[in-house]
């Protein structure tokens, strides 16, 4: 699913290396718990995987595609088609309703639009299904703008958005760090429920070690990234 080899990245020509990853592989359907202190290159790695930035050398294969060979427009299209992303917080576009936030990726990806349609008949129905799946009763949130939802609700809407149209890879960047302890567990359970059996790969970044045991594999970023290790 993910194959990185000899990936080196720095933000400026004169800056120090932020990423220096000789090898990193994730199999399809794996649920990876990636941990590391802030400033160790997590965000940069996610940007590389998402194709927003290109490393200065090395190979980045996601879902079988060598994304370093794509131009920026194709990388954006690739991300739209294959990757769902959940941020730490403030995931939602304030002027869109929860449903419109969820269906947003389908506006940028025909593939996910088609997949969502196939699954539930229409993109909106699929969004509602995912909301229900995330245990957010539609009528409880439908009339609220994104900012009126609680943080936990916002993160669940964000998860539904990442999941819509069944992308092959979900990248969650500390999605639970803004949540209370018990809400956190619920969130992970719901996320797992939805991807179980679909073959979706999950890359879950966090620095809450107590969550790690539920994942297939636990990776310290410092173990794979040789940069910053003086």
């Amino acid at each position, binding site marked *: 699913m993910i194959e990185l080899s000899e990936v080196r990245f720095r933000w400026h020509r004169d800056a120090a290396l932020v990423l220096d990853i000789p090898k990193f592989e994730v199999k399809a359907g794996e649920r990876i718990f990636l941990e590391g202190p802030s400033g160790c290159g997590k965000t940069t790695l996610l*940007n590389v995987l*998402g194709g*927003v*930035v290109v490393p200065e050398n090395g190979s980045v294969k996601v879902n079988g595609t060598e994304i370093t060979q794509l131009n920026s*427009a194709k990388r954006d299209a690739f*991300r739209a088609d294959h990757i769902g*992303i959940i941020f730490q917080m403030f995931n*939602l576009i304030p002027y*869109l309703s929860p449903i419109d936030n969820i269906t947003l*990726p389908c506006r940028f990806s025909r593939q996910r639009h088609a997949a969502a349609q196939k699954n539930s008949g229409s993109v909106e129905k699929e969004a509602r299904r995912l909301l229900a799946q995330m245990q957010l009763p539609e009528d409880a949130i439908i009339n609220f703008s994104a900012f009126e939802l609680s943080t936990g609700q916002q993160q669940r809407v964000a998860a539904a958005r990442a999941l819509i149209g069944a992308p092959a890879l979900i990248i969650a960047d500390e999605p639970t760090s803004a949540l209370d302890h018990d809400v956190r567990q619920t969130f992970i359970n719901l996320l797992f429920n939805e991807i179980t059996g679909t073959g979706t790969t999950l890359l879950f970044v966090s620095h809450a070690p107590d969550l790690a045991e539920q994942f297939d594999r636990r990776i310290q970023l410092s173990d794979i990234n040789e940069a910053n290790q003086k």
Partner: protein
Amino acid sequence: MPVVAIVNLSLRSLKNRRLTVVLTIFAIAVSLMLILGVEKLRHNAKLSFANTISGTDLIVGARSGSIQLLLYSVFRIGNATNNISWKSYRSIAERKDVKWTIPISLGDSHRGFRVMGTTDAYFRYYRYGQKRTLQFQVGRPFADVFETVLGSEVAQALGYKSGDKIIIDHGIGSSGFVKHKDKPFIVSGILARTGTPVDRTVHVSLEGITAIHVGWRSGARIPGMIIDGNAARKMDLTPRSITAFMVGLESRLAAFKVLREINNFRGEPILAILPGVALQELWGVMGTAEAVLSAVAIMVVAGGLLGMAIMLLASLNERRREMAILRAVGARPLHVGAMFLAEAVLISGFGCFVGFLLLYLGMIILQPMIEAHLGLFVPITPPMPREWLILVFVMIAATAVGLVPALMAYRKSIADGMTVRI
């Protein structure tokens, strides 16, 4: 990414920032209203100007400037420096190639309105606008020496009706402390509105002008000499001179030939002008004011568009998260830039639409006032090609201005990627 989706996002984003967006739309609307309003006024002023006189081939007066002659003979502005003798007038009027003439005699006034002596020919041959003749609202042309026909505005402003008696003031000026009190005139008719200086004119016969000046010399009453109306009527009232006259030719093709011949007239120094040419010259003089007005309107539009650019640029920072989210769900930097551009175009589009509404609303409200105070009738018509052209230019300018925030958003979006920076 379909254009529809981008426009849709832009619309919702604008809706989310209602207050600033509405204010910006309003600023653009007002500026568009101004520029179109100026254009409409200019167009109609020019039109009404050009419509003041038509169908007249030549205007002849004492030798002076062509604009001066046009001003006093047609617009009742300023004074003639000299008169033309009756003899010279008749010799030209009797030419074979001259079809008709309208003699006019100016110099007196009635409560601020100019009095013009003329003949029946005026009501028969004078044309304005699209070759329209003068129509009577009530009554008929003057038939007697002491009868008068009022322009519609004179009658309306002073509240005269047919049959009223009026006293003509000697000379020009609203004070009129020297009056031709001994010889009142009876209103025989009131003309229909023309939208030209005719509306502000008191018309009497040439004989009437002569009659009220019997017993006057050099602009003052001769002491002890009082001749009443009836006595004056019995005298020979053929004027000795007139101020100017209008000429209609048998064939317009002869206009230049006649013009040349009149300008070489041996009897006295007289001047003939082609009204169309003189009107053009006069409008050219006013062209500067016109240009200044247009320039101010353009500046106001530029100000409105600049306001929009500032609004969008100011929002750029607070929308970086939104941009990062869009990138994360697969938007290209180009999409993000396009969204900002779409917002600029939408704001300007709404602005122009509201501007049009304001313009027509303003015209409906102000039309009677403009007509009453400026004597300018602004018809409420659909936008003319030139106005559409202005609209297109404003939209092009708006798009160009909108490119600035769009480009900034594009570049920020590349730099930030999907990193949420606050």
